[in-house]
């Protein structure tokens, strides 16, 4: 096996003539591979050798050092790493904004109205976005405690918990209910939150107007009641939290 152009016909022919299997590879994104490497590192079976780390500003210097053939990897370090809670991780690069807004409009009473500017603000601040069908079929938007979000519900949690993931809204198109879409969106969210070392996921469910299906769904996912509030315009909510 060799790491050269996959289409290196000359080498491939040479290898075949000697009865050797030849395969070129080009490295690809690989979550399972990364997890396997992580397990090896944590079992002390794999240690990466860092020859030297340079600040990003000294990238030129780093290349000069690299050309001297050091033993191990050369690392560039950005000036200030962005806190993980603020990193925008999108499961699916394609967000159908009009589709998301249309789906949200059908469910304004259970969630809240959303226009394009508000959606983009939420996406920019999000800890996690999950979508099915680019958001036309289902989506979830979740924030961390660091978001700047004037929602009374978000701020209820912010006053009580130092660190959490807040599910701002999760919506599944009516025609696609009962297929496990919401559950799978939540499972992706739990996985992402655990990986970033969060221990709590929060959300609210309406009591007035009542939404018993949502309440039962969240209970089945392991959420528990942690409080409630009477909001403007006769709306009342129940606050839910789930440990990770």
């Amino acid at each position: 096996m060799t790491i050269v152009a996959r289409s290196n016909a000359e080498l491939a022919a040479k290898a075949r003539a000697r009865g050797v299997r030849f395969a070129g590879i080009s490295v690809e994104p690989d979550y399972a591979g990364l997890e396997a490497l992580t397990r090896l590192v944590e079992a002390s079976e794999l240690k990466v050798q860092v020859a030297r780390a340079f600040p990003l500003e000294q990238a030129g210097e780093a290349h000069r050092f690299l050309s001297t053939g050091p033993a191990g990897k050369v690392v560039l370090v950005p000036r200030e790493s962005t806190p993980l809670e603020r990193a925008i991780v999108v499961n699916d690069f394609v967000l159908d904004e009009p589709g998301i807004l249309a789906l949200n409009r059908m469910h304004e009473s259970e969630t809240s109205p959303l226009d394009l500017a508000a959606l983009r603000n939420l996406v920019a601040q999000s800890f996690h976005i999950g979508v099915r069908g680019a958001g036309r079929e289902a989506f979830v938007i979740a924030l961390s405690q660091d978001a700047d979000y004037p929602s009374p519900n978000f701020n209820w949690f912010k006053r009580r918990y130092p660190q959490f993931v807040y599910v701002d809204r999760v919506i599944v198109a009516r025609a696609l209910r009962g297929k496990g879409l919401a559950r799978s969106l939540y499972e992706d969210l739990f996985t992402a939150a655990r990986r970033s070392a969060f221990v709590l996921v929060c959300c609210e469910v309406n009591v007035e107007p009542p939404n018993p299906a949502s309440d039962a769904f969240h209970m089945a996912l392991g959420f528990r009641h942690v409080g409630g509030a009477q909001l403007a315009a006769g709306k009342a909510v129940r606050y839910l939290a789930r440990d990770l």
Partner: protein
Amino acid sequence: MPFFPRAGNAYEEIVAAASRQLARKPAGVSHEEAAALPLAGLTAWQSLVDVGDVKPGNRVLVHAGGVGHLAAQIAKARGACVIGTASAGKHPFVRSLGADEVIDYRTTDFADAVRDVDVVLESIGGD
């Protein structure tokens, strides 16, 4: 690790990536060590495991370097016998990675010196 180099945007401070391309940082290592792992580590992993299907008892030849030093350890962890090539100065380092035999490629042609190898990880030929 996103697709590299295009979406990986080397030298960018922030990149957007699909969550399925990311994994948590291993516990107990520095961010610098963790940053050095994905590209070289996945190259070694995909070569040895996905393509080479290295099994216990296989004899695996690797060349010292960014990919090679990780490949040697991965092959070792899978129960293989590892033969490393490196210049003499790096032999203690290559042995510390678990290599069973080390060859100085400056004095010895490994094509002559090595026999009965099941998998060769060749990362020095071409780009």
